[in-house]
């Protein structure tokens, strides 16, 4: 039979090994749906690699796709560290984008060095405040935040649609449900000419370093980790648990909000209701693949982004549905969950004592 024995806290190298093993396992498992769809597996993987890394354009597209994933991944990672189950990054991303549009489409006339920070702050604030609601309900009334954040995703998306068909609709948009364009002074500049990659990536990388520093080197970060380990013990030790949940909720929502700002002010230039193909949900996978490490989130986001971009390109070449990408990402989450066992436990295969031994 199999027995699990607890291990001491894992080393960085073992955590890395577990994440890599899970990513690899998901890619290997992806061969099954590929075969089912009648693809030649190696050719399909080749097309995916080419689609994500094959040219400078492909590579920058992958980085562009990774940008919101880093931020939603951080949002999930920091919340999950405190065992605050924020599954609402999708909704927080959309309110962030909505706030960016409210501030950045000409309502305020200011030079870029004022307007860009303003747009980012507005998005962060909107996302943070949206997450504050479920956090308050959790700490004050004991309402499960998983369900409230999930339900808020639907409410927010409908709210965005309402705004885009109503007060925030572009009067020059020929009746399409889209916002007015972001003005030039509010747009995040491009990083490279003729590519879509933008300063949102720098923002995301800075956020990852910031969260790393916060968790590792500050009192608040220590409190977050302590609450996540054992909230009752943390409270007993005099850590302000409720305040910590609030801070984590605000920060987590703000990070997801900034992801929305980047998509609208850095990439698309205006808001539509299909801004995010599920970045909020993929962020959970990113965070789990990263073992909730803020630096790891960057690499996990790059991996997930290359799956999405690679599968998109492979799908265009072969005509196979690009839901394959979502499938691989979902399998990656289940794989990392299982492989996490090897961090916490030694797995021992125990053979039953033989009859002779038992007789002695």
């Amino acid at each position, binding site marked *: 039979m199999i027995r699990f024995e607890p291990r001491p806290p894992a080393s960085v190298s073992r955590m890395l090994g577990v994440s890599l093993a899970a990513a690899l396992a998901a890619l290997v498992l992806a061969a099954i749906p590929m075969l089912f769809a009648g693809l030649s597996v190696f050719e399909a993987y080749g097309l995916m690699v080419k689609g994500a890394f094959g040219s400078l354009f492909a590579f920058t597209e992958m980085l562009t796709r990774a940008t919101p994933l880093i931020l939603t991944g951080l949002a999930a990672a920091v919340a999950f560290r405190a065992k605050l189950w924020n599954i609402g990054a999708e909704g927080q991303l959309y309110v962030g984008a909505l706030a960016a549009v409210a501030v950045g489409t000409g309502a305020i006339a200011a030079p870029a060095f004022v307007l860009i920070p303003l747009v980012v702050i507005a998005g962060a604030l909107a996302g943070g405040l949206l997450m504050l609601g479920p956090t308050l309900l959790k700490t004050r009334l004991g309402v499960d935040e998983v369900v409230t954040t999930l339900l808020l995703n639907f409410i927010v998306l409908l709210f965005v649609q309402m705004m885009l068909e109503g007060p925030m609709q572009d009067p020059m948009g020929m009746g399409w449900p889209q916002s007015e364009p972001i003005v030039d002074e509010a747009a995040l500049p491009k990083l490279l000419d003729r590519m879509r990659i933008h300063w949102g990536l720098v923002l995301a990388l800075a956020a990852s370093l910031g969260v790393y520093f916060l968790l590792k080197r500050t009192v608040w970060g220590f409190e977050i980790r302590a609450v996540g380990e054992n909230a009752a013990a943390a409270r007993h030790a005099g850590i302000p648990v409720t305040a910590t949940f609030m801070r984590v909720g605000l920060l987590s929502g703000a990070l997801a909000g900034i992801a929305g700002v980047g998509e609208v002010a850095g990439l698309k230039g205006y808001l539509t209701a299909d801004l995010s193909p599920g970045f909020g949900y993929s962020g959970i996978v990113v965070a789990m693949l990263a073992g909730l490490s803020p630096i790891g989130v960057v690499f996990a986001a790059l991996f997930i982004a290359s799956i999405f971009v690679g599968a998109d390109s492979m799908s265009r070449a072969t005509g196979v*549905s690009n839901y394959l990408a979502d499938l691989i990402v979902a399998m990656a989450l289940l794989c990392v969950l299982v492989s996490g066992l090897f961090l916490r436990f030694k797995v021992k295969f125990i053979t039953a004592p033989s009859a002779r031994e038992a007789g002695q």
Partner: protein
Amino acid sequence: MIEIIEILLSANFWAAALRIATPLIFGVIGALICERAGVLNLGIEGIFTAGAMAGWMAVWLGAGLWGGVLVAAGAGALFGLIHAILTVPLGLSQHVSGIGVTLFATSLSYFIYRTALPDVSSPPRIDAFQPLDIPVLSELPFIGPALFQQTPLTFLALFLVLATAYVLYRTPLGLAIQAVGDNPAAVESQGLSVYAIRMGTVVAGSAIMALGGAFLTMSAFDAFFFGMVNGRGWICIALTVFASWRPGKALVGALLFGAFDAFQVRLQTEVGSFIPGQVFLMMPYILSIAALIVVARRADYPRALLVPYFRGQR
């Protein structure tokens, strides 16, 4: 005011309420028995999708309607088994595993649908369940049209409420299920296997959830659409708390919810020109959050919910 009373007194309205409530009844009953055994099943949203897709596709490929229902339940059981293995013997996070199962079941259903039907502009239709016209009963005034002109799946849902209540409160199995959700160590000391009971319950609960999805494609509509589940699973998780994990209250909760939804659709035709349609579409989600807030203070969660049990460990 008169109009509102007229709506509430019409049999059509209550027929619609019951129709809207049916998938929720399946979902809440499924979620409820999983949670009674101590396992939160956030795979529900994906299991709904899988049930909707698998049931529809089986019928489309030539299985009978009841064959489709079985296939849907089987698909639900399969995803339930994944969740059960991850959360019960392996003791992994029920939150993350549930989200993982939802992402997996949803994307797999979409992928299979798209692979089987690569380029269809309008989704193919099946001959869905038709309302039963029970000879005498359906001619009763008011109750006839409201209750007895539903499709067979609605009756299955109502039957499952009774069956669940019976099993849960009147059989040794039900007591064991409740006990593993409250005090698993005590169950183990009785010589019963906590793992077996928890896993069996999660698999059975997931199969029931999938029937809610099957109702969508085989009774409410006659085709499969992307995004058709649209948060119904999450609403069921909220309703489970609202129902205090009791089958009878679950039925009442789902019916209230269905009634409210049917009511707002009718209200929409009255005042739809003043208020954007999205406000009405938001109502189910807002109502679910409100329901959670109302019961939050006195919610009596199964004591071992979310707590993994490891054999030989206290």
